[in-house]
């Protein structure tokens, strides 16, 4: 019976090919526009480290001015000071913890023909690599010993290793950075969490850094800051060391727990820490420390761009218009066939039979529209890539989930659109229409 309905639907769709084309095009365009924008939003809001995002927490401490909050109404700064990051690292109360901040180096390649270049860098502590499941191509991250002894070690990104060592295993080799010789201990494999959750301060979809060095080197080497720095009170002495020990926030601190429930006791520890610091004249505001897991933190920092959200709403409304269009056309089409319906009813078709027949017909429009929509979404995403450039790199890719979602969305919405017309068609009385005309 089902194949009979499919055949009937095909016949009916082919009979009025222009109208079928119009409906399929409308659904396709609607789905295409919606999928394009939904995909961008979906990629922006995706979980960058799903296997443990519930166990990774970002730390916020409120060291801001007693006279005004960092942000209204009473939000703590979104970064911490170098001093607090260093202190918390030393305390080591969590299962794993990493202090970090952006920096940059001038790298002088050993080959004479290569010119010096500037590389983005991250100063962080040993746990960074196991904590964030960072994949290694060669070697591994440095150890806590390296951190403590301020050893000149470096982990290179895959691209940097390709550039400096032609992709060879460079563990043990030396790289001159900022005029000093660093020993390579590891080379990363391809790694680009999206969003770049561990530091969203200069843009949530920036590229991962090119070199990683121990956090403990920041002070002795006076590593420059590459990122945001916010101060609420003058630094005082004009030295790098004084700057690091000021109330300026420019570092990030992340912790990992074996069990998310440990967050409560860690927050208690943080409050305790701040209370102790208050005795030194710091932290003049009431206790206002925060621990947020990865996804909460992404939401708090609003990594999904407003424009993307606005565009998605517009595109969804666009889809609704396309569906209304389809409902109206299907209604007109089905009602135009009252004669045929009455005849079918008269020769014994039940309401259910007709319902199936017309639902199959709407579903087929949905499938065709969905496929067209997918193609259009692909073009739409390419278009977005072209319009936005690097900004959307990695955000304009259709994955299997989205492809499935698009097809389901198309079929479900078209069947829904066909529901009312189908119902109206099925309620045609068997006799009524045969008599007149």
């Amino acid at each position, binding site marked *: 019976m089902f194949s009979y309905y499919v055949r009937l639907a095909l016949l009916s769709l082919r009979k009025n090919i222009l*109208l079928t084309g*119009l409906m399929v*095009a*409308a659904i396709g*365009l609607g789905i295409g*526009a919606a999928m394009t924008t939904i995909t961008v939003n979906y990629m922006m809001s995706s979980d960058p480290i799903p296997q443990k995002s519930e166990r990774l927490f970002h730390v916020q401490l409120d060291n801001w*001015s007693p*006279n005004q909050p960092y942000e209204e109404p009473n939000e703590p700064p979104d970064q911490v000071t170098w001093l607090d990051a260093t202190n918390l690292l030393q305390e080591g109360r969590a299962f794993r913890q990493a202090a970090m901040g952006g920096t940059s180096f*001038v790298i*002088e390649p050993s080959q004479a023909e290569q*010119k*010096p*270049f*500037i590389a983005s860098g991250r100063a962080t502590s040993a746990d960074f690599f196991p904590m964030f499941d960072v994949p290694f191509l060669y070697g591994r991250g440095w150890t806590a010993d390296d951190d403590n002894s301020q050893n000149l070690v470096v982990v290179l990104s895959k691209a940097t290793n390709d550039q400096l060592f032609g992709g060879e295993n460079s563990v043990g080799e030396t790289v001159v950075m*900022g*005029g000093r010789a660093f020993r390579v201990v590891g080379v990363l494999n391809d790694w680009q969490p999206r969003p770049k959750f561990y530091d969203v301060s200069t843009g949530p979809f920036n590229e991962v850094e090119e070199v990683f060095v121990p956090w403990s080197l920041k002070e002795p080497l006076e590593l*420059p800051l590459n990122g945001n720095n916010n101060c609420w*009170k*003058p*630094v*005082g*002495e*004009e*030295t*790098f060391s*004084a*700057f690091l020990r000021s109330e300026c926030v420019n570092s990030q601190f992340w912790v990992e727990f074996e069990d998310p429930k440990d967050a409560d006791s860690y927050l208690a520890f943080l409050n305790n820490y701040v209370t102790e610091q208050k005795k030194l004249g710091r932290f003049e505001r009431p206790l206002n420390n925060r621990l947020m897991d990865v996804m909460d933190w992404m939401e708090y920092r609003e990594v999904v*761009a*407003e*424009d993307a*959200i*606005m*565009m998605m709403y*517009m*595109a969804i*409304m*666009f889809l*609704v*218009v*396309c569906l*209304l*269009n389809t*409902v*109206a*056309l299907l*209604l*007109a*089409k089905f*009602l*135009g066939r009252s004669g045929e319906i009455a005849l079918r009813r008269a020769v014994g078709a039940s309401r259910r039979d007709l319902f199936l027949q017309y639902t199959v017909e709407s579903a087929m429009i949905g499938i065709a529209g969905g496929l067209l929509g997918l193609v259009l979404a692909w073009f739409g995403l390419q*278009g*977005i890539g072209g*319009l*936005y*450039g690097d*900004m959307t790199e990695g955000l304009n890719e259709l994955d299997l989930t989205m492809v499935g979602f698009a097809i389901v969305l198309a079929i479900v919405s078209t069947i829904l659109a066909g529901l*009312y017309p189908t119902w*109206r068609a099925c309620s045609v009385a068997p006799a009524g229409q045969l008599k007149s*005309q």
Partner: protein
Amino acid sequence: MSELGPIFRALLRNKVGAFLLALQIALTMTIMVNAIHMIENRSSMMARPSGLDEANQFYLSSNGYAENFNERAVVEEDLRNIRALPGIVDVTQINAIPLSGGGWSMGLQTEPGDDKPSVGVAVYFVDDHGIDAFGVNLIAGENFNPTEITYRQRNEQGWPQNIIVTEAMAKELFPDLTPAQAIGQTTYIAGDEPMTITGVIDQLQAPWVGWSGVERVMLVPQRTEFRSSRYFIRTEPGQRDRMMKAVEEMLVAEDRGRLIRNVRTMEETRDDSYRSYSALQTILWIIVIILTIITALGIVGMVTFSVNRRRKQIGTRRALGASRFDIMKHFMLENFLVTSVGLVLGVGSSIALNIWLVDAFSLPRIGWYYIPVAMVILWVVGQAAVFGPARKASQISPALATRTA
């Protein structure tokens, strides 16, 4: 127009179909009004003048890396050499580039003290050639004196005595004073360090185009010794591309233990900074245009159906004395009515969506004129869409009335 009554009463018997179309038109209007509003909003933001002579400006960054890099000597020599090139109007060392997205901000206040309100301002460290290199106009006070330019170290906390601010910044600090009266006024930086306004320039934008205070800028008479700085260069009209090459070649010719990078024009910088704006505009235009086409095609489809279903009725009307024009008028009027109902709904939903957008995305209110303009556009689109099927309807023979089947 006298036929509106019966047409309207007939439509009421076909509520659902007509209502669906009206709803579609209402939504189309809602999207159209708000999308064009967003487009206009972005356009007006992009149209804000930066104050610069953008077509003739470029910049580059110079990063010292060598242990023996003598920044002060290198910068002074660079500036001198660049200025000496024919085709160059002027050059200044600067810490950040307008519109580029990255820069330095501070708070200025009119009374000293940590607990006093302060006004955020973008900071450009420039020398006495800054104003000329920017191409901005001094509207009050004086430019910096070459002798007052000092050097600023990386961790330095203090501030020089004199500053130049934009008119917008002066107005923000001293709402009641004219630019001329603002000269000599004292403001406080970092809470309690006094600075004197010695000049006011007409206009200059901060590095952050999305910042509400983008017009608020102060010029500080210092050269930086941060090992990394930028040169902001203005050329004679039409000389920019040639000078970019010449300056870069000249600076890299000699190994001074520094890297020259990021040689870019102001125009590129503007395009980059506003890329997401123009991208959003393009996308919204596409949505509006396709939407209008779909709605128009939907109307064509609906009217075609309605004509086919009413062939005999049309024949009857023709038999009873309707001319072809009467039949066309009938369908045009019918569509006009449905469209009008849709547009009335659309006025409400457009305003509702706008209120929500104002609320959720802090977009400004729509101008009242968007509503009538969108209505007229959709009326015209509707009438144009009906025209084809209506013409076909008018070709139906009156003899159809006597046919029994």
